[in-house]
């Protein structure tokens, strides 16, 4: 298998570009301002570049080629029509600081999608300045802080976060100097209402929650939870990572949430790109709209414009977020349309429960309840191998493994989310592989412990990588 760094196929004198001819005169860059160090960059032909990256791509696995049962990631199909429209030069070649009259199309996309998302979620307005879910969380928490500061309520220093929450929740809270109160999950896998009541006070700015939660269970007490938090003057923040379970059926606003973020790269089909760019729009209730980050989009006398609201939390992005990602989500929503938007959740939930039923004879299901769009197992019933071993063996069967070791609630967590785009045949094949692996754990456990066997590299030494990090090509040159 191809195994070269771009630097390793370099040969002095090769180039991979051609530039237009120029007759602009040359000017001198003063010596004292010039770079002195050698620049170690590849020198390759265009074909070298094409072959190099094409061969690298063959070592990857995309959702276009196979099932990606990653819990909490909503790896659904990334429609190609969205890619086509995003490449339109009228969107891709626009400078962000052009006069508003020359960017009415771009602003229309933002304003219109904000309206559609408000419809679907019940919120009053959205900002698209959030680059990702975690960024959206940060924005939401800044809004929460600002809201209380504006009320001159300085004692609100705490935020309630379930211990089962995604790591970004407490990390984001710490970035705005909130003290985190972690609350436990009860034996039904849900927020412990009594514990919530006991920690709630007028020092709590609000609560961060995802619903369904990270176990894939719907917080059936949500209306009571919101009531408790609101009674004490706190705000409710919705982590929209799991919206695929409720899209078009339940609105976060109806559940009592005041601020929400969405993950366009999850629920709204924009591609993950190997780790980004995503988008984390933030939606708020009417009384929080002024706090949204700057600039905000508004329509004045029939024209869209960007304006700087003096009440805003400030700016959290150099410009206006990941516009081309937002554009793709806009295209997706138009493709789904009114007729289909409420079906997404139904098929997603059906798929997850189907997998639950078929695998619970082999994988531990500590809570056997009405799962929503994802199901969490706690490793093999036989305990003959760890979840890590199962995941690595699944690679040999040609699948990307589910999410492992999250949520932290169980020691051998295995979280599976089969989105609505997966057919019964895909699920059956996956189930068959998972059952085979469970059986292999009994009869030939070494197969799991030394897996994967058929991938381009096998288990990697992460310990040495962390002890003696080699983080760039230059680090390898003294070997």
């Amino acid at each position, binding site marked *: 298998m191809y195994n070269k760094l771009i630097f390793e196929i370099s040969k002095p004198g090769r180039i991979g*570009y051609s530039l237009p001819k120029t007759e602009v005169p040359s000017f001198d860059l003063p010596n004292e301002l*010039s770079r002195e160090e050698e620049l170690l960059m590849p020198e390759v032909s265009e074909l070298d570049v094409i072959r190099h990256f094409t061969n690298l791509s063959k070592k990857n696995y995309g959702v276009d080629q196979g099932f990606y049962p990653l819990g909490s*990631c909503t790896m*659904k199909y990334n429609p190609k029509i969205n890619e086509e429209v995003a490449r339109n030069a009228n969107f891709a070649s626009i400078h*962000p600081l052009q006069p508003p009259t020359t960017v009415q199309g771009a602003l229309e996309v933002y304003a219109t999608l904000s309206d559609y998302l408000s419809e679907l979620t019940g919120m009053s307005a959205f900002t698209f300045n959030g680059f990702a879910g975690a960024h959206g969380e940060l924005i939401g928490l800044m809004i929460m802080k600002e809201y209380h500061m504006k009320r001159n309520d300085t004692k609100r220093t705490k935020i309630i976060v379930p211990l089962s929450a995604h790591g970004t929740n407490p990390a984001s809270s710490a970035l705005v100097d909130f003290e985190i109160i972690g609350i436990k999950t009860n034996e039904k896998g849900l927020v412990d209402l009594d514990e919530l009541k006991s920690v709630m006070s007028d020092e709590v700015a609000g609560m961060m929650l995802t619903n369904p939660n990270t176990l894939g269970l719907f917080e059936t007490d949500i209306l009571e939870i919101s009531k408790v938090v609101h009674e004490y003057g706190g705000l409710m923040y919705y982590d929209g990572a799991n919206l695929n379970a409720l899209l078009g059926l339940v609105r976060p606003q109806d559940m009592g949430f005041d601020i929400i973020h969405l993950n366009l790269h999850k629920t709204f089909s924009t591609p993950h790109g190997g*780790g*980004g760019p995503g988008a984390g729009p933030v939606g708020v209730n009417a009384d929080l709209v002024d706090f949204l980050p700057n600039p905000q989009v508004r329509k004045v006398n029939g024209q869209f414009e960007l304006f700087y609201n003096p009440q805003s939390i400030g700016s959290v992005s*150099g410009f206006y977020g990941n516009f081309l990602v937002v554009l793709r989500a806009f*295209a997706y929503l138009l493709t789904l349309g009114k007729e289909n938007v409420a079906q997404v959740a139904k098929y997603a939930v059906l798929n997850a429960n189907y997998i639950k039923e078929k695998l619970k004879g082999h994988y531990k299901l500590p809570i056997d309840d009405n799962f929503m769009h994802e199901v969490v197992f706690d490793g093999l019933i036989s305990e003959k191998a760890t979840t890590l071993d199962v995941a690595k063996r699944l690679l040999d069967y040609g699948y990307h493994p589910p999410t492992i070791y999250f949520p932290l609630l169980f020691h051998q967590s295995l979280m599976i989310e089969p989105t609505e785009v997966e057919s019964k045949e895909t699920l059956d094949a996956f189930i068959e592989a998972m059952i085979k692996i469970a059986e292999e754990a009994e009869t030939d456990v070494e197969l799991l412990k030394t897996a994967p066997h058929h991938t381009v*590299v096998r288990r990697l030494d992460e310990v040495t990588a962390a002890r003696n990090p080699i983080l760039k090509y230059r680090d390898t040159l003294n070997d």
Partner: protein
Amino acid sequence: MFKYFPHTEADIKEMLAVVGKKSLDDLFSHIDPSLLEPKDFNIPSSHSEDELRDKLNRIGNKNKQLTSFLGAGSYDVFCFSACSALTSRQEFLTSYTPYQPEISQGTLQYIFEFQSMISELTGMDVANASMYDGATATAEAIFMATSNKRKNAILVSSTLNPRVLEVVKTYAKYRGVEIVMIESDNYVTSINDFKNKLTDEVAGILVQQPNFYGIIEDYQEISDLIKEKNLHFIMNADPSTLAVLKTPKAWGADIVCGEAQTLGIPLAFGGPYLGYLACSKALMRKIPGRIAGMTKDVDGKRGFVLTLQAREQHIRREKATSNICSNQSLNALQSVIYMSLLGKQGLKEVAMRAYNNAHYLYDSLLKTGLFKAVHNHPFFKEFVVEYTKDAKDLNRHLQENNVLGGLVLEGNHLLLCATEKRTKEEIDQFVKLVGEHNV
């Protein structure tokens, strides 16, 4: 039926039987009925592909493509066909974060190559896999400094891009970090004001190079004084200039951050862009974001993994240095491809082309007699000049001719830019249009 939903009636029937429910709605029966009342969403009907193309073309036509002489944080760069051909490959586009390294070697390797190239350009020992954008990367750079020194204040030069400053201020406000502004003096950082404000209470200083006005500042004295006090020297640098300009390392910086959109990322109305963050070896375990490292597998084969993850949110939770979970991976790939095509020679050629274009524009504009110089500092691809007539109106006139003019600053000053993409004809045309402006 719908093209993204594969379930047939037969499938649904079979699956419901397995699950033990009578209907799809039954799957939601444990939810409070008040939440499930049917909604009539005011959103459009489902669009077919042609309907979608039509609609988006109509919306797109309300945008106008202009020949850009505006920089101010977003720059017109060359687009190579290999970039989009490779980034649209499904293995790159539709793959997930490389948490399972055995089937993500493609992603991990290009991240490693990106880190290598950013390290080369900046002179830093460590670069991460990218940040959301230059502005947020700069805010994170500041927190690296304040956390590491356990101080709550930082000096920031007023010659920093105001949009980046806004983001830095917002982040700092909610984190309780004090931003101490260093005044500018004739478009460069005031050395005297810096000396007055340099105390033991600050974690270091943040400067921009070239600065917001396009000027290549002499940071030697600031660097020496910062070093004396063992504080952090953070430089927000345009990486595309570093192929030819004195590096942040040579200036004495130990944290380097900024916007790598200039390395092959389209204008895109502001996003997605490509933040980057790099640092010296001493700060390796304090840098936020993803990092790929080289290692071996059980058979001794070379491979790549995400490493130093213990700093990240999914492990440290509230003690993480940052909450960042994703990066701008696909854009990092695009810039690696761009930098590979250009290579050692091309990066220098492109940088000098921008330098030459900007200086040619500057000289040509001054020659018209309609513009005045306002300083004589060296600049790279942007510069400030004073216009003798109405600058706002000039821009209106330029726009009517499909040209995007400079950023209007106080006193009829303009911040103009000519990147490597501008041709002599376009520059001459710009000068001609200026000549035709009457107001």
